[in-house]
């Protein structure tokens, strides 16, 4: 199948590659560009383990074509600590035991990162709704919610 040239920013770096028009963004990020932090859990946009940030919005990268990211700005979990310091959501997930197997974690972190910019001071109910596109089988969510609350406080204090 004929390939299309695309270029976009991935975690602050300009990347370019050839893709088939049908290729999904998650496959290109993981398999061509070698950033395996984002995962694949359902390929039907239900579980959210592939969540990345595209042009300032949370995005399930399993249901978007790579060509749609052309010219865009993509951030994955690998870009969260780009400054050399852990982001507040990363620290809080670790501190509050908000992860177990770690498989949903990159998606959870990327959604938390964006959610706390959309709503810097959320109530517990707002966290539950705002994060409901991301599934976790291990934690029962209680500590994830706590981690997001802790991260919100930390970010507010900055």
């Amino acid at each position, binding site marked *: 199948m004929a390939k299309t040239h695309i270029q976009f920013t991935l975690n602050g770096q300009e990347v370019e590659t050839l893709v088939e028009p049908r290729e999904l963004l998650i496959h290109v990020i993981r398999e061509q560009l*070698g950033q395996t*932090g984002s*995962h694949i859990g*359902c390929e039907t946009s239900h*579980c959210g383990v592939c969540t990345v940030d595209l042009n300032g919005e949370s995005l399930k990268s399993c249901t978007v074509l790579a060509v749609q990211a052309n010219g865009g700005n993509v951030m994955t979990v690998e870009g969260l600590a780009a400054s050399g310091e852990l982001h507040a959501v990363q620290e809080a997930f670790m501190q509050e*035991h908000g*992860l177990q197997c770690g498989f949903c974690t*990159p998606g959870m972190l990327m959604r938390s990162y964006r959610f706390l910019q959309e709503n810097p001071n959320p109530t517990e109910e707002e966290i539950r709704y705002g994060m409901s596109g991301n599934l976790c089988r291990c934690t029962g969510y209680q500590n994830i919610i706590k981690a997001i609350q802790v991260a919100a406080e930390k970010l507010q204090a900055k």
Partner: protein
Amino acid sequence: MSTDTQEREQELQGVGCSRKRKEDPRFIQGKGNYVDDVKLPNMLVGKAIRSPFAHAKIISINKDAALALPGVHAVLTAEDLKPLSLHWMPTLAGDVCAVLADEKVSFQYQEVAFVIADNRYIAADAADLVAVEYEELPVVVDPHHAMDDDAAIVRDDLVGKDNAGQGARKHNNHIFNWDVGDKDATDRAFESAEVTVKEKMINHRVHASPLETCGCVASFDKVKGDMTIYMTSQAPHIVRTVVTLLSGIPESKVRVISPDIGGGFGNKVGIYPGYVCAIVASIVLGRPVKWIEDRIENLSTTAFARDYHMEGELAADKEGNIKALRVNVLADHGAFNTHAQPTKWPAGLFSICTGSYDIPVAYANVDGVFTNKASGGVSYRCSFRVTEAVYVVERTIDVLAQKLNMDPAEIRMKNFIKPEQFPYQSALGWEYDSGDYHTALKKVMEAVDYEGLRKEQAEKKARGEIMGIGLCTFTEIVGAGPSKACDILGVGMFDSAEIRIHPTGSAIARMGTISQGQGHETTYAQIIASELGLSSDNIQIEEGDTDTAPYGLGTYGSRTTPVGGAATVKAARKIREKARKIAAHLLEVSENDLEWDVDQFRVVGSPDQAKTMKEIAWAAYNDVPDGMEMGLEAVDYYDPPNFTFPFGAYLAVVDIDRHTGETKVRRFYALDDCGTRINPMIIEGQIHGGLNEGYAVAMGQELPYDAEGNLSGNTFMDYFIPTMVETPKWELDYTVTPSPHHPMGAKGVAESPHVGSIPCFSNAINDAFMQFGATKHIDMPHNAFRVWKTIKEMGLNKG
């Protein structure tokens, strides 16, 4: 304890502290290494072609068009695997399972062919080009009709065989009959009882569905003859043995690596056709082959759980003293008996079904049958069939309470095994190690103001509002297990630990278990830290690589702490004994003059004379007593003397909307007793997760089949995984009743919340309707539609 001692203990970060997890830094930075992250040079991708029918003859398979597609390397069918004798494979339950369908398919989504291509896109294109012609056959879907005279035969390969690997069978679709207990005495107790109850109930077909699906990368080196397999396996060492038995490659040349695993919950214990196809393809093509199933394949094929159709009966006197328990089960195992259990236990440890109660006589009888559905019967976040066993006793005791007009808490208190009866011999043959059930339930009732809740419920009832209170006081049996009772393919169910102390006092330890999120790298180090007085931060834990770790049976059935944890303690104590000898030598005293003190051996009565473990480690490599080997390391293979029996008391409060059937879980209070607690933070995390999985099973998860055997709910659109919105808040509590036979008194915890919460939720729903006069048990899943139907049938939505 002196301040100095306390400080030194705290520095170790040993048993009992909520140490932060060692695993987390890599997971929060996207640096985990899961199977699908493995990318080897020249790697190909495999994909299964699956049957659209539940039961059909294969007339022909035409692979020409697929093979003509550029980038396709091979299309395997049963015909291709036959010369290698790999078209069928043995199961853990003594049966065989088709790797690729041989002449017919026996369930929808069964593997028919396997394409190998350059990448996932070409593999998907090629899969569409493989043309399979089928001739449909009549199906068996309902297990209750599997043994009808005119039932279609699920397994042609077993026709004429009176044994499918687990004893005599009486019908072509019968797998086994297994019973336990004194039938005659139980029957007599029922005949003479003042009160009896009998209820039919289903533990419906569900799937553990970890967020990471199953998969592997198989890499055969044709020059060296070595096979390396990265696999999502909860039991890598057993996989290695099976690969050797199937392929003939010496076990020393097979390396199985379970890297980071994205949740298991029992789904990753078995060996599935996709793994075998990838392994064969790698041998045939001499290149690495990756196979990763998608979500539909995961939910449709790789090992469902439950599907137990049970009839529970209790006999009692008028005061509610239980006299006997009788349980009959029809078990639907699907098209092959791929039940993952210790070999001798066709119904797992179901005989724990007498629960937490002192029941004088009991009898349980289980028949397994084949149907045209996916095969399985794995333990979804529980020890083998323990969820089913706990459900039947915990539901039936509520039914008995209702008949006697007693409170469910009162009847439990009356029948609990008493603390002084431990070790307790159960009517079905187990020796319970320890327990204090009265204290646990009492603590829960006080914490939630049980009487107040019942009063509120009565007030609400008067207003037509539906509130339910569910109790569950469960006992689990975990830590399989003693090799005299438990083996997998002839290998005893021990587990192992190997600890090596380096000269400067840091250490590496390797175990036969494998974490799938339980935090082993954190907690094993805590055990060693406490035993050896070395900081857990300097103890590296490794698991999952069969080339480096000692042989072990893996992680499932809550066996890591009871078995692997015990091996770790024993190995550490061997090291400490050697360290004592070295310390005596260094201090020029007798061994008997030394006492252990947190992180050092000191001379009794002369505490200033001491050698720390760090100093001893250095000496172990340059100054040991005459005749002693240098070095400081030990290995232990631990064969447990018994199982462990964690227990708990759970309470749920639900409010049901009488117009929509929606259930709100207002409170869930979970008290667990897992004996000695290694890391409270991790224990609480495990319990949160288990409760949520129990909530999912009780309130919505189901693999639904239609009359033709079509699976009509196999994506996350249909299959219920609770999100944060519907997940309840969890309130946790604990008591500590150590196991007397475990070297540190620990029992295992991760599965209790799943096992205990399912009947608790179900009891709450049933309690809500019993107060309005419902007399029949209401089956799970208690989703809004089903609850609404009950409301409507009972006319509770009026007014």
